[in-house]
């Protein structure tokens, strides 16, 4: 046969090209900033991360998870065997049969991919991705036929040179997609970048069921702050962007996208890729940022991102709700990237939109976002008889009041919680005027300088006193204290348990230190605050508390880890980027659709946002408020 050499050559050439592409791609990533990564451990852990962690997420969509196992697993196996069987010409029927089996598996998977692509949901990208199932099918069929002789099913030379030629063309077509495309930017790139991304992930703690949600501190005092250009990202962040499969799950859950604000997390990640690889977004075939036309964005590794690649409004629309991160099968970190870029806008450009500048100025001058007198922080507690740490120096529980102290609505929550603690005879104290804003808002708005200053000063205050537990009713402060204050080298919180009030109250109820009457009101639903749920994994305590009152929570369709944000996080109400509707209104519709008369929350910010929805609407109450109204009157003997 004159053409026998053709298929192996093609395979070989494409493999070499893929190799070259891989090196080029890696160089693109390496243009990013240095970041310490344990390469070996990462590579070893990679298969497990893929099979366990990634699939744990993919599993939420059963259809896709099976499809992916079949297609992906089949392909990887087939490709390895193809190299042996067809490139190196290893004559072994077992190998050949194995290859056939892998190809059949892949073929079946690809059929399902094909089916999904017949009528794809809007979140999926089209364009080259529509071609992928065809390439997959072509690959499996081509190599199946090509392998038949090796498996001894067909005699060698069947079909003659014509078949070989046809097969070669098909090999070229499918392998260009599968190998060449993998490293030169086709849809299959996700497999290559994705695998490495899993290995070198910036937050390895997330694998194996862990949680890593705290933002990384910005280095202060350098020649520039935050991420201005794509190359200012850490190299493994760039790698992470490249891993995106454009599945659009992030888009589907993003509250800002749904509200018609100019943000789409999927497009954002794709734009980051455009940025570090250079070029335009003309080839992007998914949903746009609402209200922004696709095709006008240009980027280059050393070009300022907000000069032409994405508009700063896109960055400021994010509520940092982490729904996208939670949902992303590739475990990409959208929020990190967004805040990194915000840091540049705030710390270097001084362009925090709308009330942002004023809020930051207030935080700096008064340690609270609304510029209230720091000496009035404890006014709410004038009649509460609470111990001040300054006086008692130690207590079992430190109640972190947070800035709700200045807000009349939030004070109702604070008082309710104090009453509950008193009912349970807790030895509690507050910091009083020594407490400062936790820095949450400053940090999400990109002002890490203000955040770090607050964090350090708060830690210095905390280190003066002794306590076993910190409890707060504010999930944002909770998150900062629990997950972000650890980066500042203080022992103040060593051995201290940081708790959200729902967790704490749930313990008290379980220990029967609180006597509660059954709730007799109407239907109740529960809204999971992002900073309690997704950021800290506390989904159960609030529900158990409600159950302890005899409330059977009428769950919203989006609850638990899929809870939809109220719109109040990440400084979004402050930057207030216009959209078509309000996120809080959408969330209230979720509430209304359960038929509930009351929505229970565990966050003062959620309370404010949901109560900002025009009446008539269900009542909004913090769980502490609900509990306090069911507190059984104490029977004094």
């Amino acid at each position: 046969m004159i053409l026998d050499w053709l298929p192996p050559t093609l395979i070989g050439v494409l493999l070499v090209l893929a190799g070259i592409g891989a090196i080029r791609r890696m160089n693109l990533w390496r243009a990013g900033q240095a970041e310490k990564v344990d390469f070996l451990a990462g590579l070893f852990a990679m298969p497990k991360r893929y099979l366990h962690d990634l699939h744990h997420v993919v599993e939420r969509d059963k259809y896709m998870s099976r499809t992916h196992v079949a297609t992906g697993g089949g392909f990887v196996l087939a490709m390895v065997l193809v190299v042996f069987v067809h490139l190196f010409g290893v004559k072994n029927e077992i190998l050949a049969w194995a290859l056939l089996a892998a190809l059949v598996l892949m073929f079946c998977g690809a059929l399902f991919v094909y089916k999904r692509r017949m009528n794809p949901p809007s979140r999926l990208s089209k364009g080259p991705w529509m071609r992928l199932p065809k390439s997959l099918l072509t690959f499996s069929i081509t190599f199946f036929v090509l392998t038949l002789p090796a498996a001894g099913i067909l005699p060698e030379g069947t079909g003659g040179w014509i078949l070989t030629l046809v097969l070669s063309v098909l090999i070229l077509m499918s392998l260009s997609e599968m190998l060449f495309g993998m490293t030169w930017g086709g849809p299959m790139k996700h497999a290559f970048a994705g695998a490495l991304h899993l290995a070198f992930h910036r937050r390895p703690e997330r694998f194996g069921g862990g949680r890593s949600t705290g933002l990384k501190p910005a280095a202060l005092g350098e020649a520039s702050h935050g991420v201005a250009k794509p190359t200012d990202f850490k190299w493994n962040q760039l790698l992470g962007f490249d891993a995106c499969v454009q599945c659009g799950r992030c888009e589907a859950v993003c509250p800002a996208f749904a509200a018609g604000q100019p943000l789409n997390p999927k497009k954002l990640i794709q734009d980051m890729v455009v940025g570090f690889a250079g070029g335009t977004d003309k080839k992007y075939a998914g949903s746009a940022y609402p209200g922004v036309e696709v095709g006008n964005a240009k980027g280059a590794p050393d070009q300022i991102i907000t000069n032409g690649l994405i508009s700063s409004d896109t960055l400021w629309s994010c509520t940092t709700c982490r729904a996208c991160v939670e949902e992303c099968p590739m475990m990409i970190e959208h929020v990190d990237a967004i805040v990194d870029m915000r840091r540049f806008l705030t710390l270097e450009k001084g362009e925090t939109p709308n009330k942002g500048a004023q809020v930051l100025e207030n935080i700096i001058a008064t340690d609270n976002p609304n510029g209230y007198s720091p000496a009035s922080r404890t006014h709410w507690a004038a009649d509460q008889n609470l111990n001040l740490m300054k006086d008692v120096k130690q207590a079992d529980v430190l109640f972190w009041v947070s800035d709700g102290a200045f807000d009349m609505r939030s004070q109702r929550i604070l008082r309710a919680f104090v009453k509950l603690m008193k009912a349970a005879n807790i030895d509690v104290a507050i910091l009083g005027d020594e407490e400062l804003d936790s820095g949450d808002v400053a940090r999400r708005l990109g002002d890490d300088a203000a955040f770090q200053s607050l964090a350090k000063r708060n830690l210095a205050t905390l280190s003066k006193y002794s306590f076993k537990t910190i409890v707060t009713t504010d999930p944002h402060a909770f998150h900062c204290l629990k997950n972000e204050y650890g980066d500042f080298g203080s022992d103040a919180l060593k051995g201290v348990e940081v708790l959200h009030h729902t967790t704490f109250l749930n313990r008290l109820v379980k220990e029967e230190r609180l006597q509660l009457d059954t709730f007799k009101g109407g239907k109740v639903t529960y809204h999971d605050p992002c900073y309690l749920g997704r950021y800290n994994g506390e989904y159960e305590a609030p529900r158990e508390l409600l159950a302890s009152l005899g409330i059977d929570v009428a769950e919203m369709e989006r609850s638990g880890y899929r809870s939809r944000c109220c719109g109040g996080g990440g400084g979004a109400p402050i930057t207030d980027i216009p959209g078509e509707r309000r996120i809080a209104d959408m969330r209230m519709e979720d509430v209304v659709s359960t038929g509930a008369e009351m929505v229970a929350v565990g966050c003062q910010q959620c309370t404010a946002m949901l109560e900002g929805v025009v009446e008539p609407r269900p009542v909004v109450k913090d769980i502490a408020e609900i509990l306090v109204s069911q507190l059984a009157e104490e029977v004094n003997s």
Partner: protein
Amino acid sequence: MPPKVNVVSLVSVGRHPQSGRSRRAEQDGRAVELGLKLSKKSLTVVHAGDSQEPVLRQYAGMGLDSLTVLPQAADGDALPVLVEFLKNSKAQVVLTGVRAESGESSGMLPYLLAEQLGWPLVPRVAEILTIKEGAAEVLLALPRGQRRSVIVSLPFIATVDNAAAEARQTAFGPGLRADLKVLNVESVTDDAMATWQISAAKPRPKRLKVVKAKTAADRMKAATAKPVGGGGKVMKNETAAEKAQAIFDLLLEEKVVR
């Protein structure tokens, strides 16, 4: 705008009304903002006082490459050093706040500067529209958002009103990196101030509306009248016309309808 106007903005250390902490002063910030609008990067910003003052970084964070400091002790008198500095500068427009937020807050400094330099002073500027042929067209801020147009010859001093464009956000990075040019000047003590007694502000008694009732009827009226401020009046059952009339009367009384 002509290619080059030499603008100097004078800045002081402000005071946050709630916390009392040092901050970028409201009006001085606006003076820098207006200066940046007029002369972009060539703006000179000058502070007479402590060169270590962190607030200076907040001004610098508005995008200044450098900031000039004329070092003065805490009890120093800024006037002589500023006069000296301005005499030797090529300043054509000097912008200040109307009143400082710290110290005496007298608002006299710009007037004294103007007097000693022999320059005209425009008070409470909202906007500088044009500068050409040795004169500037300036909008003064009047109460109620009204404006007055004034032409003033260069060089001049202007105090910047709260109605002027708000100071841009200060950015941490550039503020940190800006160059502080500390000049070598003599510190001049403010002797008069040393004789003053300064204490925390005492609350001023609210003037009571003493009704000097001259007749029994007046006394009756005074005794039965609804106290002002103690909860509002709610009109429910009157006709729409009566209600509207009540509102209109209030508008007339408050002189917002004239």
